[in-house]
């Protein structure tokens, strides 16, 4: 301890001096093999247990998807029978899923007008260049507005752009039969979009619009997905669904064969961590195993070093 005493005398008076002389009080951890083993052991335990926990939680979630594009091929309206394996507790999230649809294309993602969607008035064709290549009604291929007023093909389409143009427009009506009586399941589209997103959308003039941009399904569509296979929330079912058979009446408007894709519907519940995600639990278990291997490696290292030491 003699050294530290001397050191105190030399201790510089101010922080500034300490910085200048590079003698700031420092903490220097000395890595030891034991601390490393402990560290990685803790990591292994954490990851393995988290992996298991995630797996259990994920297992609690019910999820089923049904491909319907092939079944409904060629029918504008089709009745698609499905069977739910288990009971579903409300709220049940009802998704549609598209495969092989590259929403993440750059050309696609950029093709919209934030100003127009926010309800800004008086935007001419010239102001909507970001919507390229779908700016006018003509390009959009629409000639009637929502309230059936004719649209001039040279006027700007509201909404314009590729994303809007490819808006998913199949509709679903879930029914089931109890004692030969067909009952509809209400699928609410309220609250399917992010509340903050709602504020970004407003209609300009219904009679000039071919689509209601405040429709939550549209807003959900406008949030483009990162991967070519994606799901979008179509509605929330606020009632429990028993295990059993259901018929889904589908207005089969959306042409998926044009882009060589598939269409699905998905029923899913969530827990407090969101939807079913097996990836995370698998990844956690993998990392946990890797971490255990590291721990074992260090243990072996320690063991062999010690053996060698004795020889010395």
């Amino acid at each position, binding site marked *: 301890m003699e050294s530290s005493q001397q050191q105190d005398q*030399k201790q510089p008076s101010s922080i500034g001096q300490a910085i200048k002389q*590079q003698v700031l*009080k*420092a903490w220097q951890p000395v890595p030891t093999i034991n601390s490393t083993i402990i560290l990685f052991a803790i990591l292994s335990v954490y990851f393995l247990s988290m992996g298991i926990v995630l797996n259990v939680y994920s297992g609690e979630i019910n999820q089923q998807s049904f491909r319907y594009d092939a079944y409904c091929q060629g029918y504008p309206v089709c009745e698609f029978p499905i069977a739910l394996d288990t009971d579903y507790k409300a709220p049940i999230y009802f998704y549609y899923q598209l495969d092989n*649809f590259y929403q*993440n294309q750059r050309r696609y993602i950029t093709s919209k007008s934030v100003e127009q969607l926010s309800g800004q008035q008086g935007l001419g064709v010239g102001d909507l260049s970001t919507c390229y290549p779908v700016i006018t009604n003509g390009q959009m291929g629409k000639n009637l507005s929502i309230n059936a007023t004719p649209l001039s093909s040279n006027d700007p389409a509201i909404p314009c752009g590729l994303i809007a143009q490819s808006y998913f427009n199949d509709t679903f009506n879930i029914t089931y039969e109890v004692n030969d009586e067909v009952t509809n399941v209400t699928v609410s589209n309220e609250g399917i979009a992010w509340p903050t997103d709602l504020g970004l959308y407003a209609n300009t003039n219904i009679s000039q619009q071919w689509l209601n941009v405040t429709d939550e399904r549209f807003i959900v569509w406008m949030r483009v997905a*990162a991967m070519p296979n994606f799901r979008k929330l179509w509605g929330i079912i606020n009632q429990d669904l028993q295990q059993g058979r259901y018929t889904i009446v589908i207005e089969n408007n959306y042409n998926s064969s*044009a882009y060589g894709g598939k269409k699905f519907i998905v029923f899913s519940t969530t827990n407090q961590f969101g939807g079913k995600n097996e990836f995370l639990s698998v990844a956690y278990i993998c*990392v946990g195993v890797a971490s255990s291997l590291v721990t074992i490696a260090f243990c072996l290292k320690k063991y062999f*070093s010690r053996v060698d030491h004795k020889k010395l």
Partner: protein
Amino acid sequence: MNIVEYRKHRNENQIRTCCCKRRAPWELQPDRKILIGTADKNIPNNRVETSKYNMLTFLPKNSLEQFRKASNLYFLLLGIFQILPPVTTTDGQPTVYLPLSFIIMVSMIKDFFEDFKRHRADDEENNRTVQKYSLRTGVFEYEKWQNVYVGDIIRIANKQRIPADIIILATSKGGECFVETKNLDGETNLKPKYAHPQLQSLYKQLNEKELPYNLFVTMDFERQNPLMYKFKGSFNIVNENKEQPKEALNYENFLERGCSLQNTDWILAVTVYTGHDTKIMMNSIIGKMKYSTVERLMSKQILWVFLFLLFECIFASTYYNVWYQRNVNELQSYLNIDKNAPENNSFYNFVLRFAMWFLLLGNSVPISLLVTLETVKFFQAQMIQWDKNYLTFDRAAAVHSSNLSEELGVIEYIFSDKTGTLTQNIMKFKSLIIDDIVYGDIQEQAYQQEIIDEKPFKEKQRIVSQNVDFTDDELYSELISQFINKKSAKHFSNNDHIFLSLLCLSLCHTIQTELVENIESDIQYNASSPDELALVSFAAEMGFKYIGKEENVMKVYIKHSKEILKFQIQQIIEFNSTRKRMSIVLKDKNGRLILFCKGADNVILSMLQDFDENDTIQKNILFEIKKQLQEYATIGLRTLVLGYKELEQKEYEKFLSEYNRAQAILDDDQLRESLMNQLEEMIENNLKLLCATAIEDKLQDKVGEVIADLKSAGINVWVLTGDKIETAINIGFSCKLLTDQVKRFIIDGDVEGQVERQLGKVTNYINDHPEEPLSLIVSGVALVIIIHNFKEAFFKVALKANAVMACRVSPKQKQEIVNLVRRLTGKITLAIGDGANDVAMITQAHVGVGIRGLEGQQAAKASDYAIGEFKHLRRLLFYSGHESYRKNSNLILFNFYKNQLYIGAFFFFGFSNGFSGQNLYDQWLSQIFNVFFTSLPIILYALFDEKYPNSNYMQLVQDKANFLESRPDIYREYLSKPIFNLVSFWRQFLLGLLQAILLMVISFYAFEPISPHNQGQNSTYLEAGMTIMSAVVIIVNLKVLLMHNTNYPIIIYINLGSTICFILFFLLFSQYPFFESFDLFQRLFECFNYYMAMILMLIVTNFFDLARLRYNYFVEQYKEHQSNNPPTQLEIEM
């Protein structure tokens, strides 16, 4: 003679350029004609400006320079790309300009301060004052240097510096004056300069009264030029329009700016060249920017990274094209690409995607790296300047090119000057051998410390002064007793060897002094050779005080008998390197002639009078002296032998007449030389042995120890000196560069054959004993031959040698050697020196270190690092350099890793969308990612991290403030295993790229395709992107913490602060729909999967890195244990 012609003469030529007039280059200037005393205000005055900018020009000039840097230009162009509508990935916003402007601003501020420093230095120089003769008032008035014009008469007092190039008009010493030219050529001896006699007589009274109004002196001389040691001109005194013949002026009358006046009360002079026209300024070496090897390697790698980037772009655009063509029908349905649209054209598509990807990946070349590195190096330089451990006489080290801090960590060759660098250039008289008696202890030097601490058991009288360090009792008491016996000097005979030796010491020299009134007072000796100074000082200490010379009569004051002895100088035969001796012939007041001679021991001993074979006493004495001299030589003392000879009047006269005749042979140099040599040898022969002396060439503090450390760190130390071989060898021994155990080879041949033979001998030796160490000593003359003919052979040998000393080398040769070693080995070199003669080598080496002598700043100014003493080199290399190298290398590696990790992620994102060029991050956040979120931690790491913290080790090892200073082997480690090289660079680069894949996969699959939110809402591509971005920020900042060897609480806070800064920015951006990341913050931070993914990403990157590092660390530690070394980690319980 037309005075008007001189008045009207245009001394200054200007050339007209497109918009303004400029000074013509000196070759186009006219020769000058001036009137002495009349300032020519057309010629620029004596103001010197080394600064680059002024207030007005700073902004335009500096901005232009900023964009001359390739990296800045690169990002400028990138920004222009960002504005172009078809390719923009950022909605037409040049987001890259945000960090770029920040970086340029930092760089500008740095330039501003550097220029400010230069301004200050210039101002200091320009505002020195000198007395200038005012025609109006007729007296000398103080004036600033900068206001001196060509033609002005100035007065310079003793010890003052010369403000401009001048011609001496008059001096206080009757036309003679002495100057010191250390600033110009590094020589410390005084040089005489003269006023032209006519000018002297004309101007000497100017101090008191004005010149007659109708008297003019005109001067003609050459235009300004950079030729040193040369002046050509003439003057003409015109008195009442009567013309006198022209008189020539030459270099003898000329004084350069930068010299200083010595031993002369005053001189009057006329200014001939001012300011930038002065010789010193025209010869000033404009320091080339030096870049460190690490930085050069980095620049080269940046180029490769750039090529890699182009490759990625080509890959991406090709991929897109192929993918597009394959899926064209599917994509048509929702991408609406017209069959005839340009997007359908492969070539157009290729170009477009290429540009887009170029924009997206452009940041692979880390925008902040250069500025980070610059900032770090700037502060590292400051740290060195602040460091109290570098203090010498309260002056800290100075860093002139902060660029090189890491270069100091990988030095493999050190070229050192000797005088003033290894040695203090102070000779201490240590020992005197008269007959066979040795006076003066030499060993005591080692015990100095103890003598001060505790009473030594045998206490001897010790005389210590500037040039004497003599520990002895006997000589002085012997002397006193002899004087008590004999009363007066005249009773001594030539057989009293003590008396005669001291007389010889006080007389046989060429020292200049000023005669002083009071003989008891101290006398300032001015010697061209420090050895002589030591001898004369010693004689003075012993009571034989040389008090100067008056009209060829040398006077010695004998303290013991209080009398002054006078000797008339008859002849001085000066020292030169072939003769290795000097003689002086004196006549005492009785008219007897005596010749004193001193010289190298082997020379003098061979010239001794033959003595009888049976004269055992003489034989014994000679044997003893030889033995003693040998002993002195091995410890590096400089030895001289003194002899005397009584001359007969006739003998001397005969010599004199023949000598004069020989001297008068003008047409045949060789004949004259050989004749004179013969005569000199004749008269100097048959000497009687008087005494031998030993002088210690005082080494600088701890030179031996430091050199030993440097060598064990694997650094080759070469000594390049202008000195003689003998002195060099002496020093080699005293600083332990040479030892008796190591075979020594000397190459000093004058002709080709001889050199070849000597070289062949060494080569053979090496071939026979490849493992044996050897040392090599080479002379300058031989070196010229070697460089011409045997370059390869020599360097093959020299690079093998343990120690190489080159003697008698010129500054140019020093430079050449450095250059050759640098070129042939490709290793990093460092040159260290103190004198102007070292400037060339200092600027040539990778790193130039200047020792700041007491006087003479030339070397220090030209150097990259100026330190006070040689011993600081150890700290500079082992601690500052080593640590800078480690930290800066890691910083560079880290920066590339970081950017690859960051950018790689969205390159791999490309696979999910056919490389359509979609970005993944919020563009604004993305641009400030580098500068604001991830720069500060690594900067602080590079500034404050320490392998072995100073605070812990400060007092552990005496005089070594950091533990690293005592571990040359750690320094050596990086020489064999550099941290920063091709392999490590690309390993880090690819590591970043690979980890980017992991990040990509984890963040996408954590969010897709299901909903990660408990309300079932969907996520979008930006959520995955921002997750990656926040992961990268946290990962890289955490990585910096893991890189730290030492942790300071404040730095941990700042590191966390950087991450928090990102979070705050993200939060802020999330509030505004303008940004792409609108509302993402809230969504992510309440999403459980986000945290899960984050932890996962941290572990798969950093912790597996950590495992690898730890494993390597343990393996190394284990190895050290096995090799029984003490552990690297000096563990102390605090």
